[in-house]
């Protein structure tokens, strides 16, 4: 049969029986809408959870240690640091696209600042990590830099004010009191004002989310927009602590500047270029501290290979830090499966309804089918006609179902934006209507309609034309 002929017959039949098909396809519309809505919701939540809260395309490799509980204390047994050799070995593993050593600041430190944002300065104990700047380059705000500026004492340019220095990453300040090797500058040297580099820091989105979601309410502070927080200046005082016992004799005073937000930054604290943390650790510790890491971030080429890389890492005698991503992913998958199953049941019931409607229509149209057979239609032609009608009904029902899901999603987002209080990581939209999901929804709708029409189509194709036309 010609494709054009098939189209003519299908469209003609659908027009004549539009009312029947509309009623029959309501279930498909509802089922596909539910299917699309819940899977888009699951996908959207998954993107937020695994994309922003627990990035799943990387692993954090930590040394394997054994903890022993001694009363209130837990004592770690075994070496708890990694070195360049380990980083090299991890980089050679299959599916690993990059390794980025991470170092904790082993000296106490505090940060003071925030007047420009909050009205008065806040002082806080600071936890800091150092990471390879390459890991977060994509997250650095425009005009800023995240790298280790080597502020050699001799080369610094003299200045009177910040205007005499270049760009966003320099300020005019006193020379540091201590040299990198621990020696102290003379009082005269320390009185010179020179152009120094801000210590660039990155913060995690967690910080802003926690602040906006909880802290600001407790202190009646304004909500922060991360874009406007970038550029924040503060004093970074390494070696200083609010805990007297932890204070160091020598305190390094730097000016820090927030240069961006990154999911790879430490969740609670600030992240500095690895060079600064290494420099501070050496200053307060030993020269070996410059190449002693507390963990190594391993980038993986695909989320599908995370499990394989994790296994290889464990085989090498290291552990993978538990980020909670696996549990979160499992929960989301279960959520998607449950609601996906409910949607399948709805569409399945609708397919049974479709089958009943087609059986009824075929009974009504048996003489037409007989005529088509008499003028040359094969059994396959009749089957194609019925299944084609079902496919078209499925396509149209799928379109309506997807549109309904879009509307429901938009409504949900609107209600959330207006009536649900802010919480950490509250997304602008909870839904991710990815093209594969939409294609799947259409295929699902068409597939179930065709499945529902399969038996009626078989019966129509096997109909005896002589019997239906002449009764003989």
């Amino acid at each position: 049969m010609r494709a054009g002929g098939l189209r003519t017959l299908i469209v003609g039949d659908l027009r004549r029986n539009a009312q029947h098909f509309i009623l029959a396809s309501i279930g498909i519309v509802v089922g596909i809408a539910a299917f699309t809505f819940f899977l888009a919701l699951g996908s959207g939540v998954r993107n937020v959870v695994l994309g922003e809260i627990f990035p799943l395309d990387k692993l954090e490799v930590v040394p394997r240690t054994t903890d022993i509980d001694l009363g209130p204390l837990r004592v770690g047994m075994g070496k708890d640091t990694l070195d360049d050799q380990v980083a090299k070995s991890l980089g050679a593993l299959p599916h690993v696209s990059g390794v980025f050593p991470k170092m904790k600041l082993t000296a106490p430190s505090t940060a003071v600042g925030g007047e420009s944002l909050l009205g008065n300065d806040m002082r806080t104990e600071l936890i800091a990590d150092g990471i390879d700047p390459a890991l977060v380059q994509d997250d650095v705000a425009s005009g800023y830099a995240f790298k280790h500026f080597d502020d050699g004492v001799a080369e610094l340019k003299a200045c009177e004010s910040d205007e005499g220095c270049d760009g966003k990453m320099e300020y005019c300040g006193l020379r540091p009191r201590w040299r990198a090797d621990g020696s102290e500058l003379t009082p005269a040297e320390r009185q010179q004002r020179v152009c120094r580099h801000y210590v660039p820091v990155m913060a995690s989105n967690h910080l802003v989310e926690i602040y906006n979601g909880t802290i600001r309410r407790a202190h009646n502070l304004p909500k922060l927009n991360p874009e406007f927080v970038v550029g924040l200046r503060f004093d970074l005082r390494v070696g200083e602590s609010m805990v007297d016992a932890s204070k160091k004799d020598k305190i390094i005073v730097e000016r820090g500047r927030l240069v961006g937000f990154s999911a790879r930054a430490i969740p609670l604290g600030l992240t500095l270029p690895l060079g600064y943390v290494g420099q501070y650790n050496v200053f307060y510790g030993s020269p070996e501290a410059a190449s002693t890491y507390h963990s190594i971030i391993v980038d993986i080429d695909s989320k599908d290979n995370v499990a394989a890389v994790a296994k290889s890492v464990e085989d090498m005698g290291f552990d993978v830090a538990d980020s909670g991503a696996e549990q979160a992913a499992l929960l989301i998958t279960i959520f998607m499966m449950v609601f996906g199953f409910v949607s399948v049941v709805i569409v399945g019931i609708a397919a049974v309804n479709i089958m009943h409607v087609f059986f009824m229509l075929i009974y009504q149209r048996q003489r037409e089918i007989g005529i088509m057979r008499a003028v040359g239609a094969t059994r396959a032609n009749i089957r194609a006609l019925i299944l084609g009608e079902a496919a078209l009904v499925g396509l149209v029902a799928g379109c309506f179902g997807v549109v309904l899901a879009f509307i429901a999603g938009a409504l949900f987002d609107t209600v959330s934006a207006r009536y649900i209080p802010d919480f950490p990581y509250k997304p602008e939209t909870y839904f991710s209507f990815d093209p594969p999901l939409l294609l799947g929804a259409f295929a699902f709708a068409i597939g179930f309609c065709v499945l529902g029409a399969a038996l009626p189509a078989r019966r129509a194709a096997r109909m005896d034309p002589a019997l239906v036309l002449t009764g003989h």
Partner: protein
Amino acid sequence: MIRVRGLHKSYRSGDGSSQRVLRGVDLDIARGEFLSVVGRSGSGKTTLLNIIGGLDSDYEGAVEVEGKRLHEMTDLEASAYRNNHVGFVFQSFHLFDYMSCLENVMLPSLFDRKGGAAADARARALDLLDQVGIAEKASQPPMNLSGGQKQRVAIARALFNRPSMMICDEPTGNLDRRSGDAILELFRALNQEDRITLLIVTHDPLIADAATRCVRIEDGQVREDSGASVRASDEDGGADGGVDAGEGAFEAEERA
């Protein structure tokens, strides 16, 4: 040439019993014949023509058309046979009311595996509607037409693929006398001018008289055949079928 040999056909009823409709029918029909088949209701005449037309393939015996055994054909071949070689006309017209008359006539083109341009099919359908005298109704749905006009549309549809044979099941059964006469004239012209073989089941004595040959079927068997003697002489002389209209025809039974 159609050759029917030892044709048996049974129907199974709902209670499981079997009802024999055709009991060993032997029949030869020459190309270009105008054959009327008469008999009481339930005698098996429609069943016989359904089998010859390829609508019914569940039978015992042999039916050959132009040397091809129908029961050996696949569904595809049987469908092509119906599409290209047979035109059906029914008492109830069996037109699609949701299509225009033109689209009804073009219906066989949708299933024609030889293909062809849609414009050609349209031109052919318009030409046929013109031949049967209702070209002005081409764009109307059949429901707006009288019974005679509907039957003309059905005839035009049957003629679409230039069949060598037309099988008509009581084509004037639902028509008034005047319309029936007009349809009969159309059949006569098709048979005489286009040499189309006409097989007509009828209770109408006028059609039976108009046919060149009349076969009476009773209890599933051929009881009378006005053309049997002619055919025997044809076989002797080697000439192809054909007898004068009305010659040898017996009086058909009155319409039920």
